[in-house]
C-alpha cells in the first residue's frame, strides 16, 4: 500500500516550498534574522544592505534553485516514463555529456573571456553547455530514428555511445588545459548555483514555465507508454509525436539548466523515484510532485552549500547527492520491509 495520497503529498510540498525558500533567505555568510527577512519581503526594510543581500544575491539564487530543481526532476520523471525504466535520467539522452564537452571547450579555448562576463552576463561557458547538450541530444535522437519510428533501445545505446565519445573529448580537453582551466572544468562539473543573476533566473523561469505548461498534456500518454509502445498506440496515443515532443522539451530544459547551473546530478534520477515510491507512477501527479520535490531539494542543498564551510561555499551538486542518497536508501529499506 502507498503511504500517502498524491493530493496530500502535493499539498505538503506546496506548503513546504515557500517555507524552505524563506528559510533559505535567512542563511548564508551573513545571517539575517527571520523578522528582518519577513519585513524585507513583505514590507519595507530597515537597511539597504540587507535589501541588497536578500534581493540581489539570495533571492535570484533561490529562484534559480527552484527552477533548476523543478526542471531536472520533472524531466527525470518524463525520461523514466518514456524509457519505461525507473533508473533512466535526462543524461541518458546525451544532454549532460554533450553539455560537458561544450562547457569544457569554452573554458579551454576562450578562458580569457569568462572572467569578463561576456555575452551580457550569460557566460560563454553557459552558451557552450547549452549548444553542446542540445546537439548531443539531437544526434542521439537522429541515430535512433528510422522510418519505423524512434527505437527507445537504440536511443539508450546511442546515448551511451555519444556519452563515451563526449567523455573522451572531455578528457582530451582536460589533458590539454592548464591547472586553472582544469579547476574550472571540474568545478563546473560539480554543479553550482553561485553564479545566479536575474537574467539567468528569467531565462530559467521561462523554460520551467514552458515545461510545466506542456508536460501535463502528455502525462496520460506517458501512463499508457508504461505498458509499451504498441499498447499505447492501441490506446490512441500518437507515440512518435509524444516521444519527439518530450525529448525536445527535455533537451531544452536540461540544456538550459546545465547552462546556468552546471551539472547538478542526482535530482533528475532520484527525485522522481522517491516520489514514485510514495504516490505511485501516475504521471498526472508524479510530474508536478517531482517538480516541487526537486525544487525543495535544490533549495535545501544550496542553503547548506552556503553555510557548511562559511565563509567559503561548497558546489551545490555535491550537497544534493550527500543529502539525497541516504534518504533514498532509507526509502528503499522501508519499501523492502513493507513487501
Amino acid at each position, binding site marked *: *500500500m502507498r503511504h500517502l495520497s498524491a493530493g496530500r503529498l502535493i499539498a505538503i510540498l506546496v506548503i513546504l516550498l515557500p517555507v524552505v525558500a524563506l528559510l533559505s533567505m535567512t542563511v548564508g555568510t551573513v545571517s539575517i534574522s527571520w523578522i528582518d527577512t519577513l519585513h524585507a519581503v513583505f514590507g519595507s526594510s530597515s537597511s539597504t544592505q540587507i535589501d541588497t543581500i536578500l534581493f540581489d544575491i539570495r533571492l535570484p539564487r533561490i529562484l534559480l534553485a527552484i527552477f533548476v530543481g523543478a526542471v531536472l526532476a520533472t524531466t527525470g520523471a518524463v525520461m523514466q516514463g518514456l524509457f*519505461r*525504466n*525507473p533508473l533512466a535520467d535526462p543524461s541518458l539522452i546525451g544532454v549532460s555529456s554533450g553539455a560537458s564537452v561544450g562547457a569544457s571547450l569554452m573554458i579551454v579555448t576562450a578562458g580569457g573571456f569568462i572572467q569578463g562576463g561576456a555575452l551580457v552576463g550569460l557566460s560563454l561557458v553557459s552558451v557552450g553547455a547549452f549548444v553542446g547538450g542540445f546537439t548531443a541530444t539531437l544526434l542521439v535522437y537522429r541515430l535512433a530514428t528510422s522510418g519505423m519510428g524512434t527505437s527507445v533501445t537504440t536511443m539508450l545505446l546511442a546515448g551511451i555511445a555519444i556519452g563515451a565519445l563526449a567523455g573522451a573529448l572531455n578528457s582530451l580537453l582536460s589533458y590539454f588545459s592548464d591547472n586553472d582551466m582544469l579547476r574550472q572544468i571540474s568545478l563546473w562539473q560539480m554543479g553550482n548555483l553561485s553564479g545566479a543573476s536575474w537574467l539567468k533566473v528569467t531565462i530559467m523561469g521561462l523554460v520551467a514555465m514552458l515545461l510545466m505548461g506542456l508536460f501535463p498534456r502528455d502525462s*496520460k*500518454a506517458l*501512463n*499508457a507508454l*508504461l*505498458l*509499451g509502445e*504498441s*499498447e499505447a*498506440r*492501441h*490506446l*490512441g*496515443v*500518437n507515440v512518435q509525436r509524444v516521444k519527439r515532443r518530450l525529448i525536445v522539451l527535455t533537451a531544452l530544459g536540461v540544456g538550459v539548466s546545465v547552462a546556468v547551473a552546471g551539472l547538478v546530478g542526482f535530482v533528475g534520477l532520484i527525485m522522481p523515484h522517491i516520489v*514514485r515510491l510514495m504516490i*505511485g*507512477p*501516475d504521471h498526472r501527479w508524479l510530474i508536478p510532485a517531482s517538480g516541487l520535490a526537486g525544487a525543495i531539494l535544490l533549495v535545501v542543498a544550496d542553503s547548506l552549500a552556503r553555510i557548511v564551510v562559511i565563509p567559503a561555499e561548497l558546489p551545490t551538486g555535491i550537497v544534493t547527492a550527500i543529502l539525497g542518497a541516504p534518504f533514498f536508501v532509507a526509502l528503499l529499506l522501508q519499501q523492502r520491509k513493507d*513487501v
Partner: protein
Amino acid sequence: MTMLASDISLHLSGFDLLRHISLEVEAGKVTAIVGPNGAGKSSLLKVLTGDMSPTKGDVYLNNRLLNQWQLLEKAQMLAMLPQHTLLNFPFTADEVVGLGRIPHQTGNAKDTQIIAEALELVDASYLQRRFYTQMSGGEKQRVQLARVLAQIWQPSCLGEQFLVLDEPTSAFDLSHQKLTLDIVRQLAQKGVGVVMVLHDLNLAARCADNLVVINSGVIAAQGSPEDVLTEPLIDKVFGVKSIITEHPITKRPLVIT
C-alpha cells in the same frame, strides 16, 4: 460493419510471414484463429490492428481503411490484448484498468464505475488496490483483460467495436479459461466482434462462430468449427493423429489426440 483483411501479404526481412490472407471479422461474432507455432497468427493480429502495415493488401475497419481512422477514433472502436505486457511500474490494478479509459472523455465518476465493473467481471475485484508488479502471471493477465474490456465498455458512436485477443487464456487455470470464454460470448452478444488466437482447439471449437486455421502464413481452412475441424486437416496442419467426436453436452466438435 466488419473488420476486413483483403488479400494481405506480409513480407519481413526476407520471409513471407503471411500470403494472400482474406479474412472478415463480423461484429457480434467470435472468430478464433488457430495454427501451429510460427504459422503467422500473431503477425495476422498485428496487421489487423495496424501494428504492422501489410506489404500488400488492405485492412478495413468499419468500411474505412484502417490507417485512415485517427488513432483516437480507432482506440474507441478497437482494443487489443497482447500475449504479454511488460509493466515494471507499481500501478495498482484499478490504475492499470483505468489506462483503458484513456481514449474516452467520460469523466472520473463514470470511469471509476467502469473500472470496478470490469475488474468484477474478470474476477479480480480483490486485486483492486494491489500492485501489478506483485501479482501472479494469471492475475496480471486478468487485469490486462479488464483493461481492454474497459476500453470498449460502452458502445462507440463511430462504429462497431472489436476486441482482439492474443492467446488470452494461456496463463489461466481452468475456471478462468471458462470465464474468459463466457466473457467473450457475452461481448459478442452485445455486438462486439471478437478475434482471438487460441492454442486449445477444444476451447476454440466451443466458443468460435468462425474458426480460422493458419499454416505457414496461409489460411488452411475457415468456417464453422464443425466444418473446419476434421481429422485429415489436423494431421496436415499440426502433424498429429486425432479423433474428432461430439461434445456430449455442448454438441460442439471435440478433438481427442
